[in-house]
């Protein structure tokens, strides 16, 4: 077993819960082309709360698993609270400590969510 590529991370990467696009969702996106990540997230918001969210795009296992795990966490949360989240919380959700270069991958999903404007 690898310290970083734990089973739970691989599961979210290979069989994500939230891949897709919400037709009536609010969308934001970001690219990190130097490592080949591109990500779009669409969210549905009712009374300030995220009631559904999906992501689409391509990238490394860490960036894709991180966004899927993040969406598990944020569905049901207020968007204003999501925007207050820190990178450290991503690592907490994933249950791993990341090196500086992989932080960039893992934080991509949160960066995109922070760009969502109601």
């Amino acid at each position, binding site marked *: 077993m*690898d*310290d*970083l*590529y734990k*089973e739970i991370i*691989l599961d979210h*990467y*290979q069989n994500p819960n939230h891949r897709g696009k919400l037709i009536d969702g609010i969308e934001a996106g970001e690219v990190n*082309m*130097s*490592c*080949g*990540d*591109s990500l779009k997230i669409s969210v549905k918001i009712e009374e300030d709360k995220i009631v559904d969210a999906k992501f689409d795009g*391509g*990238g*490394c*296992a*860490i960036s894709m698993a991180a966004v899927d795990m993040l969406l598990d966490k944020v569905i049901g949360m207020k968007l204003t609270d999501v925007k207050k989240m820190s990178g450290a919380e991503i690592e907490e959700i994933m249950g791993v400590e990341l090196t500086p*270069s*992989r932080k960039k*991958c893992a934080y991509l999903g949160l960066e995109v969510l922070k760009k969502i404007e109601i």
Partner: protein
Amino acid sequence: MNYKKYFPIFKKQPNLHYLDSGATALKPQVVIDKMVEYYTDYSANIHRGLYPISERATEEYELAREKVAKFINAKMEEIIFTSGTTDSINLVARAMGLKKDDEVVVEIEAHHSNFVVWQQLGKIVFEITKNTKILAITHVSNVLGQINDIKSIIEQARKINPEIVVVVDGAQAVAHMPVDVTDLDCDFYAFSGHKMYGPTGVGVLYTKAKRQLEMEPAKFGGGMIKTVSTSESTWANGPEKFEAGTPPIAEVIGLGEAIDFINEIGFEEIQKHEKELTEYLLEKIGEINWIKILGSRENKLGLVAMYSDDPKMGTSHDIADILGRDFNVCVRAGHHCAMPLHTKFGIETGTVRASLGIYNTREDIDELIKGLSKTWMIFTKK
């Protein structure tokens, strides 16, 4: 032959498997010593210092220029020191007074250093015509590893347009094969010191004598002038005109030593050693069925970009991370500053690039292969 003994990094890290010489080469002890010697024994500024240590610094600096000139079969006056390949190519664009509607023929495989500057300052086209001002080509691709037959490309180009200015990016060539700029008949040839066992921060721009006369300075300041009055200035002759300010003296002297290092081993031996390892690398990677190689296997220097087209096997970033963390195998992941090329091949998430240097051994390649097997185990949950 094992050349690791010449590189002190392996004394501290005997298990380092460095396969990223395409990004930067490791430094031999002789180069480090030569630079330390400058800083400890004669650390003075060059030119116009009328005292012994400045005279010595100037001599060593100009000796390095002579070594570079001989190394690529040019004249000393044709060698301009820059900060690297990128700086060299930017210098050509600015010194030749490139305008927005000037046509520059570029290649899709070009490194961004030989692409973005032309895109920003000129007009990029992909076909040579009578109107083409500049032809910007790559001697050896930093992704495909292929040696381009630039001599015949230059010949063909000059038949269409005798006035065409030919700029060659030689960054990936100079440490691995002999280069003769006079025989190639290019106008400019750019390369970096740090990819040829020399220091970072120094590069070279070969400028054909005739073209140098057409160049205007791109930087102004000390060292590049002949006279200065309150109303106007005139420029120094030769390479000094383009070397404003205090140059990277220790780095230039270190580069001269790196050239001696290469010459001492000799290209015959370097090419034999690296060809044998390249064949071994290609053979071993060929045995892994989930890994594919970008580009042809023919006419290749020791530089191989690979990828997996199985979407469940992670991307180049994941593979390089596992290789580095678990095996101390150093490779590069991503687009290697060649995004148009990766886009052309439809590989948006990049490739893993392994590139060889004189210090590599079969064991380094074996570790790479072990790391790739582990990657497969991780992603298939075996």
